[in-house]
C-alpha cells in the first residue's frame, strides 16, 4: 500500500503531517512492521525544543530498541496521551491513533528537506530488494 500522500517522510522512517504551523509526527507502517510489537516509547516532554533529524526519543519493541528522529525543528507541544498505556497503537495505526508528538514548526521551509510519499515508497522498495 502506498504511504499517505498528505505528509512528508524521513529516510529514518518518521512522518510529519502539517496543519497550519503544527506538525504531527509518527513512524511509518514499514517501520512498525520491521520493529515488531512495540512495548514502550520514550518521548520528550512538552516544551522541549527539538531539531530536524536529531534524536527525538526512543522506541522499544520486544525485539530491539531504536532511536526516533524528529522530521522538523521546533517545540514539542503535545505527546500522544494514549501512547504510554497503549504503545501497541503504533503497530495498529501508525498513521492515525499511533501518532507520537505534535511539534510547533520553527522553520516550515525545512519540509523541503523531507521525502514525499512517492520518494519514500521508492526508498522502501529499494530496501526490500536488497
Amino acid at each position: 500500500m502506498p504511504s499517505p500522500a498528505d505528509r512528508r517522510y524521513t529516510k529514518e522512517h518518521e512522518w510529519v503531517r502539517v496543519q497550519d504551523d503544527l506538525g504531527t509526527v509518527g513512524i511509518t507502517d514499514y517501520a512498525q512492521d520491521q520493529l515488531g510489537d512495540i512495548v514502550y516509547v520514550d518521548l520528550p516532554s512538552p516544551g522541549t525544543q527539538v531539531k530536524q533529524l536529531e534524536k527525538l526519543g526512543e522506541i522499544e519493541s520486544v525485539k530491539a530498541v531504536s532511536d526516533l528522529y524528529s522530521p522538523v525543528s521546533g517545540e514539542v507541544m503535545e505527546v500522544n496521551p494514549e501512547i504510554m498505556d497503549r504503545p501497541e497503537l503504533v503497530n495498529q495505526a501508525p498513521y492515525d491513533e499511533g501518532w507520537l508528538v505534535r511539534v510547533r514548526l520553527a522553520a516550515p521551509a525545512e519540509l523541503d528537506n523531507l521525502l514525499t510519499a512517492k520518494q519514500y515508497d521508492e526508498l522502501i522498495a529499494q530496501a526490500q530488494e536488497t
Partner: protein
Amino acid sequence: MSSDQPPPLRRTALYTQHVALGGRMIPFVGWEMPVQYKGIVEEHHAVRQRVGLFDVSHMGRLEVTGPDAATFLRSLVAYDIAGLAVGEGHYTVVCQEDGGILDDVYVFRLANERFLMVVNSANVDKIGDWIQQHFHSSLRATMEDRQMETAMLALQGPEAIQEMARVAPTVAEGLPGRHCTEAPLAGVTAFFSRTGYTGEDGFEIILPSAAGIDLWRHFMSRGIQPCGLGARDSLRLEVALALYGNDIDTTTNPFEAGLGWVVSLDDGADFIGREALLRIHEAGVRRHLTCLKALERGVMRAHYPVLRSGRRVSELTSGGFSPTLGVSIGMAYLPPELVAVGTQLEVDVRGKPLPAQVVQRPFYRRPKAT
C-alpha cells in the same frame, strides 16, 4: 569477494513451511530460523493461554548406544543419568574440569543401553568434539548424530495435551512430565517427550524429516499458532530458564546459576568437573543468578549494567519485555548481600537509571492443573 565468507546458513526440513506462513527468517547460530510469524507477543500469549508450535530442529540430537553408554555419558554430565529409568529424562549440564558450563543438555534414557542427548545448536560441534576427545577405544559405545535425518517440533501450552491426544492418544495419556517414549506415528517411529522450554505443559517430538513436515502441516490445519525464536526467548525468560551463551557459559558454574539440582555429587560416580564442583559446593558461591523486575516503564536488555545506589554491581545476562507481566524483566549475577527479594537496584538503560527490584525466581509459574 572475500574468500573467508561465513558458510551458508543451514535450513531445517520445515524451512519452506516457515516461509509460506510468513515467518520472518533470521540467521541464528548458523541456521536460518523464523524469529516470528504474526508477532512475538501474540505467539507468546498463544503458548501461555492455548497452544503453540515451534520448529526446534536446529537443536543437536546425539544418540549414544552400547553396554557402556550409561557409564560413558555419566562421566560427561553432572547429573546421575545412569540412575535414570528407561523412559525417564533429566536436564543437566556438561562441565569442563573447572566446573564451568560447556553446555546445558537434556538426557533421555530410551532403553537400558541407549540414550538421547539434546544439546544447544550453538554447541553441537563443541560437544561432539568434547565427546570424541573423552572417548576411548575400550568403551563399548557409539555415538550417532540424528540431526540431519530428523525434524524436531515442540508443541507447548495448556492445550498441547488435547492436540497430542488427536495424533498419538497413548502418548498423550501415558507420558508423565520429563518422561519420553518411542511410538508409531503415521507409519514411522517417533520420539516423544513431555518437556519444553516455555514453562507450560507440552511435548517435544523427533521424527524423520518428511513425517515431521506432515505433522507440522497437521498442527497448522488445526489452527495452532506457529511460534518463532522471539516467543521462545520471552517464554523461557519468564520462567527463568537459563539461555546458554547469555546466562550460563564456561565462566559460570551450575551452583551460582541456580542449577544445583542438576548436579549429583554423591552417587559415587566420577564426572568431568566433579572435583571443582565439590569444592565450589563446600565453599559456597559468591554470586547468584537473580531475577530482576523493572518498577517503571522501559525495557532492560542483556548486558545493561546493574547499579546499586549509582554504583555498578553487575550486568544483565538476559533481559526483555514480559508479555505476561506487562513489564520488563531480566536476570543478573549478584553478590549474596543483594539477592534478597525486594532489594532495590537500578538498571542503566542507555544512560538512564531504571528502578528495578529483586523478585522470586521464576517470574511466572503456570497455574497448577486441577
